[in-house]
């Protein structure tokens, strides 16, 4: 019979892959619960998931495409913008939701044990549903603008995954910090807003001077957005050096985030 040892953890804490894997059904159930309850007692239900990216696209097209005449790599501005807003929303919603997730699930954390990592992971992955709905709209828009996808579309899941992992890697830090410092919850919306302007959502990365491109890549979302747009619309290939820097940053943030989260999670129940 298995023997469970309960004692204070010190120093390096194992990730606990096996435990995490064993709890994969819980991941599914948490996501499923959020989906089922999110639009309970709303009139248009999942329609709200579309409202935000669609309205943003409309406004950005008017302001940046029509008035400011921001270049769009030779693409119609609405589709140029939407193809970036989609992965950006996936990232931003995941980041916001996941950052708050640990405190939101405080009731559970204080009552029952399960691998805590499940919480931010579930809060990140659930946004794939909204993303999928948005993707359908994007496909409609592509048909409307007669954009035929190239082979590069096969790389879409890769960039999508990087967007999710970026959100997760940052929110692992923030969600854990938010337990002790609730200031984090207020900082995140501000942060995502600024972050968006630091990413090529409204403008092409080609606007950024060549000499600064490397630093630009330190923002993982720069590579993701450029890559996503390229994979779908196949106009300008991203700067691969920039994408490599982005990936390296995500990997570092993620490993550090998991370790940090595991280290402080033992205090969650006492602090929430």
């Amino acid at each position, binding site marked *: *019979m*298995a*023997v*469970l*040892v*309960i*004692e*204070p*953890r010190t120093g390096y804490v194992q990730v606990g892959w096996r435990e995490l894997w064993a*709890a994969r*059904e*819980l991941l599914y*159930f948490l996501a499923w*619960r959020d989906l*089922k*309850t999110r639009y*309970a*007692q709303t009139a248009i239900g999942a329609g709200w998931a579309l409202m935000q990216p669609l309205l943003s696209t409309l406004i950005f097209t008017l302001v940046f495409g029509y008035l400011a005449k921001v270049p769009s790599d030779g693409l119609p501005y609405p589709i140029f913008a939407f193809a970036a807003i989609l992965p950006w929303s996936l990232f931003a919603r995941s980041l916001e939701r996941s950052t708050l997730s640990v405190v939101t699930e405080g009731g*559970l*954390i*204080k*009552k*029952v*044990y*399960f691998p805590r990592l499940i919480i931010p992971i579930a809060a990140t992955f659930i946004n794939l549903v909204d993303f999928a709905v948005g993707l359908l709209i994007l496909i409609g828009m592509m048909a409307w603008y007669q954009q035929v996808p190239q082979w590069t579309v096969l790389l879409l899941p890769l960039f999508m995954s990087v967007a999710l992992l970026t959100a997760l890697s940052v929110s692992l830090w923030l969600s854990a910090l938010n337990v*002790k*410092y609730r*200031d*984090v919850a207020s900082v995140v919306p501000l942060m995502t807003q600024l972050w968006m302007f630091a990413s090529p959502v409204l403008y092409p990365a080609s606007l950024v001077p060549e000499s600064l491109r490397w630093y630009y890549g330190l923002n993982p979302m720069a590579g993701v957005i450029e890559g996503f747009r390229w994979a779908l619309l196949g106009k300008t290939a991203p700067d691969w050096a920039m994408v490599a820097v982005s990936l390296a940053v995500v990997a570092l943030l993620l490993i550090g985030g998991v370790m940090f989260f595991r280290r402080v999670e*033992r*205090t969650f*129940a*006492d*602090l929430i």
Partner: protein
Amino acid sequence: MSNTAVSVTGLSKCYRLGTTQAQDGSLAGALTRGLRRLIGGQPASSQPPDTLWALRDVSFEIKKGEVFGVIGTNGSGKSTLLKILSRVTEPTKGRALIHGRFCGLLEVGTGFHPELTGRDNVFMSGAILGMKRQEIARKFDEIVAFAEVEQFIDTPVKHYSSGMYVRLGFSVLAHMDPDILIVDEVLAVGDVRFQKKCMGKMEDVGQHGRTVILVSHDMSAITRMCSRAILLNKGEILQAGPAHEVVNHYLHAGHIQPVVEWPDPIQAPGNDVARLRAVRVKSEAGQVSDVIDIRKPMRVEIEYDILKPGQMVVAQFGFNTEEDVIAFIVNDRDPVWYRRPRPVGRYVSTAWIPGNFLSEGTMVVGGGIFSEDPWHEHCDVPRAVGFRVVDPGTGDTARGDVTGRWEGVVRPLLRWTTEHRSLEQGTTSQYGYDCSSLG
């Protein structure tokens, strides 16, 4: 393989008070403290943080299949112990070894979401408690039937009555088949009939060689169900041992014993007529005992010296509950000595109390010697002795099969009779029922 289910050694938990307070817990506070440290000024906070040891050096062992009680006042560390054992929080020191599948229930309905239906919540809650989806699906019907919410299983639980909510929550837990089950005051909820069902389920669990840790304020539940118990006080184990002894200790806090004696006649309470020498609680067979089976007759005796001849005296006992409610007062009516002047000497008067009469719980007895006509008190010692009445839970008491709290200072097992005849034709319609639906 050892036959230990849970083994706890030196378990301690220290809480730092005030860490969630604004000054310490805010980001700004942490940043300024960090900055000051960097700049090399004096440490930001010179006073040590307030700490509270919610649990201090607690060690015990629970055997497989044992029902183990944990008692103590609020803030004694019970919840902290539970939280550590169910891995919600981590100990500061010490360790606990848990052999087997473990399930802690700190609250019924953990993981329930009000907007979800009963069905969804069963799966949700089951998943959080660590059950596999297939396992939940397999036991689903059983869970719902046990909770008696079949009709409402597809209704969001926010529309449930609190009773239904609790029943469904407990039912999920009860069907987890853990090797070790922790229950914290859960049985204090739901109606009496459902409590009994829960008890039955837990006994089932016990009979399958499973271990139950019961945390409760209900002392009679602890004595009835647990074989052993620990008493926590301010985070430390005050006493460990057989459940009824520990409960006794808890209730008496060491002040009340089944015997009080005054060996020195000068010190003995009384006057120049009578002096009290001893009061004793005894079982039917005459053994001094502080635990009395509710079904068995018992006796309380008072030993006294009469120093002046020719006095007509009576002994008196006053029985009070733990809360100091007077249950009854009895005066000595032994026909041999009633209204008869007593010669000088040593007397032992015994009051016989029938079985199935007192209520469960602690009884505190005061003893005294009086003259009735005219009324005169020679001596009176309130709260002289005490004892505890326990119901063995065998079902042949006034409690029957009921398991919950039972009020009242006495609990007689009365003779009941029943008359029965069928209802006349048409009577039922007056109640607005169809006769056939009455069954």
